Structure formats: C-alpha cells, structure tokens
C-alpha cells in the first residue's frame, strides 16, 4: 500500500493537495453560514444553474474558450443567488424550495438553449467548464521567480476574499444568520448580508468549477461545516473547525486516491471524488464522537439517565 507512494512528487502531488486545500478552505469558510441558514445545497444549485450562462456565452462569442464560458457561468451563478432571494421573499417559500425553483428553471432553460442553438457542437459544463484538480500542476505561471499553478493563485485569491469578508462582517453575518428580525432592529440589513454571502458562494463555486471541477466545491460547502456543527455550538469555533476539516479531507483525499486503488492493484483514481469522500468519512467520525451531539455520547447519557431513573446503584 505504501509502495504506491513511491512515485510521490511534491511538484505534482503537493500542488494538487494545495489546490484542494485552498478550494476546501474557501468553501469551508462559507459553509457554516449556509448550514445555519439551511441553504447547504446552494453550491449544487449553482452547478446546475450555470448551463444557460455557458449556452448564452457560446451564442454571443461563438467560441468555447475558457474565458467566455467562465464569465457566462459567473453571471448566472450570481443571478441564481439573487433569484433565490427574490422568490423566497415574494413567493413566501423557504430557502430550499426557492433554490429548487430557480436552479431547475435555469437548468431547463440551459438545456433548451443547448439543444436549440448548439446541438452540433459539444457544449456541456463537463466539457467546457469543469476543470480537473489533477491537471493543476501542468498549468503554471511564474510568481516571484517560482512556478505556481494558475489554479492555486485563483483559489488562493478566492480563499483570501472569503476570509476577509468573514472577518470584516463576522458580527453582521452571525446575527443575520441566527435572528434576522433582531438584526433589522439593530440597523443591520439582513438582505444585504444575504446578498454578500450569496455573491461569495457564487464566486467560490464558479471559480472552483473552472479550477477543480464541481464535486469538490459542492461537497466542501456542506460537509466540513456539517461535521464542525457536530463538534461545537460556537460559531467562531465552528468556522475554524470547518476549515481544518476541509483542509484535512483534501490531504487525506489525495493520499487515498493514490493508495486505496493500489490495494486492489489499480492505478490512482479521481482525486476530487476521494477528497469529497474523505470529508464524508470525517463527518461520520464527528457525528459519532462529537462531545455533545455525538451519537456515542448521547447513547451513554441515555443509559446513565435510565439507570438513574430506575434507581440502580451507580
């Protein structure tokens, strides 16, 4: 199993993990807010909703180059966030339902556009938008004399942007997540904070689609935050743990992508998928062993309580 790591190379595997960790950190910074606001599926919603953006970008530019595809996807990503809030407000439905309405609607529009206007070329997000994290080390630019992958720079910038916003608006984001009504009476616009958060999610999601594909960011927006939710009741600790779990699953994911298939005698498998899977495993561990909400601790408490009620000797 360890022999499979003999071909380990920092220039290759190091950068793949760095890209995964940055994507995970950027997403895991926002994840706790999404989980608390019951909007966890936003990343997935955006991954479906970008299709019309790609189709329109193709119709306008007649090209399948990365840049127009990215811009089209980014614009529709933002629109998804805006439409979701509109429908929630005017339609009086909860976030999940309004997200469902928006992304299925946009996805359907995208399919119609693709079939009607561009059926003769291969135009789907898997082909023209989603990058692959494994290709990270191949595409580098020189920064301060070092060859740094373009993806690492993009995702680093996104992670930095998210970190800055979370630090600057920590209080505002926190109060609007827990009690929007109170926030409004205190003079904090919960709508503005919602749009800020959704904009950050859209930027993170689309930048990650282009850099490392869709599965990683969809998973990292939800799973590390959900795992952190099992471990703590404080928002600041939750965000911190969420980022740590995200980064840990990135490293663990790439290692297992190399080592797990080697056990069965195969070559390495898809890294992004393994990173998402590792996050899932860490979630299970957190759900089992959490100090207050963990399944094991709950079980012990229930036993103790039952024993107490029955008056058995301690």
């Amino acid at each position: 199993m360890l022999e499979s790591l003999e071909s380990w190379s920092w220039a290759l595997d190091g950068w793949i993990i760095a890209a995964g960790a940055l994507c995970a950190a950027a997403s895991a910074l926002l994840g706790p807010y999404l989980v608390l606001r019951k909007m966890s599926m936003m990343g997935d919603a955006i991954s479906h909703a970008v299709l019309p953006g790609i189709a329109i970008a193709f119709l306008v530019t007649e090209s399948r180059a990365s840049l127009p595809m990215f811009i089209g996807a980014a614009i529709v990503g933002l629109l998804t966030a805006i439409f979701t809030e509109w429908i929630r407000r005017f339609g009086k439905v909860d976030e999940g339902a309004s997200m469902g309405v928006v992304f299925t609607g946009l996805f359907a529009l995208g399919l119609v556009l693709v079939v009607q206007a561009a059926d003769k070329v291969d135009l789907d997000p898997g082909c023209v938008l989603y990058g692959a994290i494994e290709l990270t080390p191949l595409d580098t630019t020189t920064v301060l004399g070092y060859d740094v992958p373009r993806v690492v720079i993009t995702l680093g910038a996104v992670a930095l942007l998210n970190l800055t916003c979370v630090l600057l608006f920590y209080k505002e984001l926190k109060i609007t997540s827990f009690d929007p009504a109170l926030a409004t009476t205190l003079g904090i616009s919960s709508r503005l904070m919602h749009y800020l958060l959704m904009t950050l999610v859209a930027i993170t999601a689309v930048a990650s689609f282009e850099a490392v594909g869709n599965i990683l960011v969809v998973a990292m927006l939800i799973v590390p935050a959900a795992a952190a939710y099992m471990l703590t009741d404080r928002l600041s600790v939750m965000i911190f743990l969420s980022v740590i779990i995200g980064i840990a699953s990135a490293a663990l994911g790439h290692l297992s992508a190399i080592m797990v298939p080697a056990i069965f005698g195969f070559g390495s498998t898809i890294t992004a998928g393994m990173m998402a899977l590792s996050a899932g495993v860490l979630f299970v561990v957190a759900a089992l062993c959490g100090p207050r909400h963990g399944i094991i601790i709950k079980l012990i408490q229930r036993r103790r309580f039952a024993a107490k009620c029955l008056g058995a000797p301690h």
Partner: protein
Amino acid sequence: MGVVLRRKRSLLKFPNQAHTNKTYRMKSVTRRSTIKLLSTLVVTAFALPIQAAPKKYPYSITTTVGMVNDIVQNVAGEKAKATAVMGAGVDPHLYKPTRDDVAAMIRADAVFYSGLMLEGKMADTLIKVGRSKPVFAVTELIDEKFLLEPEDMEGHADPHVWMDPSAWAKATQAVAQSLSKFDPGNAALYQKNSSDYAVKCLELHSYGKKVLATVPEESRVLISSHDAFNYFGRAFGLKVMGVQGLSTESEAGLKQINFLVDFIVENKVQAVFVESSVSSKNVKALIGGVKARGKDLKIGGELFSDAMGAAGTYEGTYLGMLDHNITLVARALGGEAPAKGHDGKLSHVK
C-alpha cells in the same frame, strides 16, 4: 479569437458525400488558415526551444485516446513507447484524468492528443504543457479540407475524424511530420512507417466502399446514439443520423425521436446502432417507437465511436475498430461482407 470575421462562405457539398442529410460547408478558408496559423505558431513556439532529440530510445509518448495512440505507436515503431490515458469504452468528451495520467504526461518526452475539442477542457491544459515539451493536436494538423464542419457552426469542426480511414491516413502523416520535428534523426523511418500504415488505412477505405456499396441504395442509412459518424458517412456514402446531438450529455428531444421514427417507418430502415461509449437508452426509445407503429427494428450491433475495443484484441486497434464498424454496418443493413471482416480477424460481428 476575439474578432469574429464575417465573410462570404461558399456553400459547397463534399464531392463524394452522396446524400447525407446535413449540408456541410467546406471550411471557410480564411478562418481555418487563421486557426492553422495559430496552431503552427503554437507548435513552433514550443517546438523550437526544445528541439533536442530524445535522450534515449525508446522514448516515451503519452496520448489521450486509443485511436491517436495506435497511429503514434505505428509511426514511431520501436523508437518510442506510446501510452494512452483513456482506455476502452471511455467517453473522451467527459474524461477526467487521474493523478497517474498527469504523472505520465509529466514524464513523457512528447504528448499527442486528438484535438478539435474532443478532449474538452483538458486541451487547454495540454496546450500549456506545450511550453515545456512537444505537444501535438493530431486532427488540427490535418489539412482543413479533410475536415467536416456542421452547418452554421464554423470554427467548430467535428472532431471524429478517425471515422474516415482516408482522413486518418492524413493524420498518420501529420504524426510522422511531428515526430520528425522532435527526432529528426529518424525522420526517414517515421516517414516510411506512416506511408506503410497509410496504405493499410486506404485498403480498409476501399474495402469499406466495396462492401457498403452492396447495401441496397435505399437502406444506406446509419442511425446511432450520437452524431459521431459524419466522417464515416462521408467516406462510405451513407446518410447519417444521430438520436442526440454531438454532445454526449445532451438529451434526445422528443421531436427528434418522432422524426427518426417516422423516417425509419417510411424508409423501411432495418437496423439502428448503439455505441460502446454512449448509453443505449435513446436508441432503445427509437425501437419502442417503431414497434408501436407495428414495424420491426433491430439493433444492428455495437459500434465503436469514441473509444476502441478492449486492449489486446483486433478491435482494440484502430484498423480493427473501423473494420468492425464497416463490416457490422454492411451486414446489418443487408449488404454483403465477410463475417470476419477485411482482415479475417473480427470476432464480434454476427
């Protein structure tokens, strides 16, 4: 290309394109030459500083799809070992490379890929790899007049060039030229290998023309899962129709299914075909539709479109794959072809 130049485009039909339902425009020459020029620039840009011949023999070449791998290996002969990252039954439009594939590309002395967006977004990265080692897009090096372009989709040529063995023979020559640039010392050998291989391609081409000519004229229709057989149709004079568009992810429209069902019933088409790398769901929907109209339609068999057969078999080579397709189509549509194909090595065709 930021500026899209508008110009008159001549509407020409391909000379031997007997009756395909789509009118293909010949490439707009200026546009194609811009692309050609650009790709030449790209090629020379990275070929020049790294023209150093391989340090040792056999040197290693990494390729994407099997069809490209096969011709590269045949042209390079014993001078190089070519390895494809995509195996049998893989859909190259949606393929995601693994870490080992990337490691192979980093280790390789040269990289060959098919091009024309067949590999999707991966091509972007391959072009970047070209800064540090020779990278060649095989179909983009072929003379533009051998390429097909769907109507009103200029600049987005159909990437499935290998379906026409005579065009793939040109690709073989492009590979020989690329290898000679990389390793000038063996240029003569590469040239000879490519000529030998091109002869085999052309033999297969004339075999295909011969056996498919035995199909009754009104039955010369090839209906399959997605639009991968336009070159095949052009090469052998078949009308080609796909249930879904070129993109393997797009859904078949109900209208298209109804249109095809009408067409099949009216023209008494006997067989439709499924593909090894695409789901057969849509073709089965066609069969259901035709049955509902009281006619019989059978699946003519599984064609190789975007990937070759299993490695180590005859169908796992480019020539075997095409032989399989030609023989299968000819026999299923009521033509006469030897069960074992052109080379007598086929095992799958009934």
